[in-house]
């Protein structure tokens, strides 16, 4: 390695470290503020960076006020059912569209592509009216409703099936498997990584969704984390330490899961995002 290359490497490292710190500042500031008193957080002369005393009252107070156990439960149920529905229906439809010749396949596939090209807000009013006409607002079902099927996931799984070799099906057929058995025992297990990618993608986007949960579930017992944060902001505008504590509690579970499974997260998002 020449001296020039060596200095180049050092410069790149310094640049990346500075960039990382910049990216982390909002997180660090959220954590520091969450442990301060209101007085300390709004003190400017001198400006306080680290809390003089790390207090936990902000956390205990928002947990008491917002019933986080319930919010976690609702959010988790919404994510769970959306992931199960998405993976299940997309695996079936993806196999049919990628591997089977049936009448009307072209039309079905155009429907999938069409849905993916349209902005999602165009569905919201009729979806809302459907749910309210059957009196199902403020339920877990209402939260899951727009995610019962997924055009994007169907497309993703179709691509995964199309990448598998033809011989596998032939061999299974010669062994006497019908199409259902071939799918279940031979083909579906081979697309496990696409299913995991879709599952992660669905979970992250369900967790981040704000507009749908906010309009469909307004009862305070049926909120999810994001809609509860939106509601809370309206109520405690000035109490930033509490708002930061609530944000931290809302984001922490997903961050921890992400840090444990970061490889799957990043690859899942990269493969599904890139295939879109």
């Amino acid at each position, binding site marked *: 390695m020449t001296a020039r290359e060596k200095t180049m490497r050092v410069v790149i490292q310094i640049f990346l470290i500075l960039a990382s710190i910049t990216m982390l500042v909002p997180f660090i500031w959220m954590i520091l503020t969450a442990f301060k008193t209101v007085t300390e957080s709004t003190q400017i002369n001198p400006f306080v960076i680290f809390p003089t005393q790390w207090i936990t009252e902000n956390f205990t107070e928002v947990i008491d006020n917002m019933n986080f156990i319930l919010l976690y439960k609702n959010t988790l149920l919404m994510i769970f059912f959306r992931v199960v529905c998405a993976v299940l229906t997309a695996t079936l439809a993806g196999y049919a569209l990628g591997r089977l010749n049936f009448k009307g396949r072209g039309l079905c596939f155009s429907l999938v592509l069409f849905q993916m090209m349209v902005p999602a807000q165009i569905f919201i009013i009729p979806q809302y009216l459907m749910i309210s006409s059957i009196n199902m607002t403020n339920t877990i079902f209402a939260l899951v409703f727009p995610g019962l099927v997924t055009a994007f996931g169907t497309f993703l799984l179709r691509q995964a099936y199309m990448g598998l070799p033809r011989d596998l099906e032939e061999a299974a057929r010669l062994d006497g498997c019908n199409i259902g058995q071939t799918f279940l025992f031979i083909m579906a297990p081979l697309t496990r990584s696409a299913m995991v990618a879709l599952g992660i993608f669905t979970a992250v986007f369900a967790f981040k969704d704000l507009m749908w949960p906010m309009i469909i579930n307004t009862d305070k017992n049926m909120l999810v984390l994001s809609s509860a944060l939106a509601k809370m902001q309206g109520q405690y505008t000035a109490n930033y330490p509490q708002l930061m504590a609530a944000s931290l509690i809302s984001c922490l579970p997903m*961050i921890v899961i992400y840090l444990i499974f970061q490889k799957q997260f990043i690859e899942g998002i990269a493969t599904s995002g890139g295939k*879109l």
Partner: protein
Amino acid sequence: MAGKKQKVKGTARARSENIWGWLFVLPTMIGLIVLNIYPIINTIKQSFFKTGDFGRGDIFVGVDNYVKVLSNSETWDALLATFKYAIIEVPFSIAISLVLAVLLNRKMRGRSAYRTIFFLPMVCAPAAVAMVWRWLFNSEFGLLNHILGAKIQWVSNPKIAIYAIAVIGVWSIIGYNMVLFISGLQEVPHDYYEAASIDGATGVRQFFSITIPLISPTIFFVCVTRIIGALQVFDLIFMVMDTGNPALQKTQSLVYLFYQSSFVERNMGYGSTIVVFLLVIIMIITVFQMIAQKKWVYYS
């Protein structure tokens, strides 16, 4: 005899593929029709109606809603704000994440740690992210003004609020674009760079002459999807801007306006019209990009 049997078997196979195919695709198709196809038609239909209570007793008003939407200055302000947001978010997030992807696309110390950090905002709820940034932007007690030693009204000055929000958007999306670019870069053969090095091309030169053309399909893909995403911005604006914020009029996006008229003012006909307007805008821009790609995207 054998040939005939083959043929019978062939049609039996075709029949069975037909049945299984429909069986497998049916749940998704029913779902798409109920959740997406019917709603599109219904939204377009509603845009020609004045809304009664809860969608009942709607009155047909022809193109009245369109006239109102197009003649309301609020709509054009919202369109302008949406464009301003996209014009900051898309190019900056793409440029920054492309540079980061190139720097990280090699064996180096801390590679996966950097990747983890840059991607982190992606797994946080925008509702929480927006609250944190709002606090950073706070004009009196915010960290940003303290560092700059200024008293800038980041989110209540109508001239700059939308750009401040776009900064949050850039910060949130960098990691996502970066990961897509890294996977695009991994497809670029290493020999190209070696050949370029032997010819004496510098790193910057290699970046513009090899990297950019070879991953232009990925750049194009990210560009199209990010523009579509940016034109639908809502969460950040909704969370950062209070209803009493003096900058709201110049900062609300089209989707914000859609939410406000459909679910706060409960005028779903008007809301439907706004969202159809958005659909048309997105379609025009996407078609335009499809045409423009021929000029700069390089498919090997």
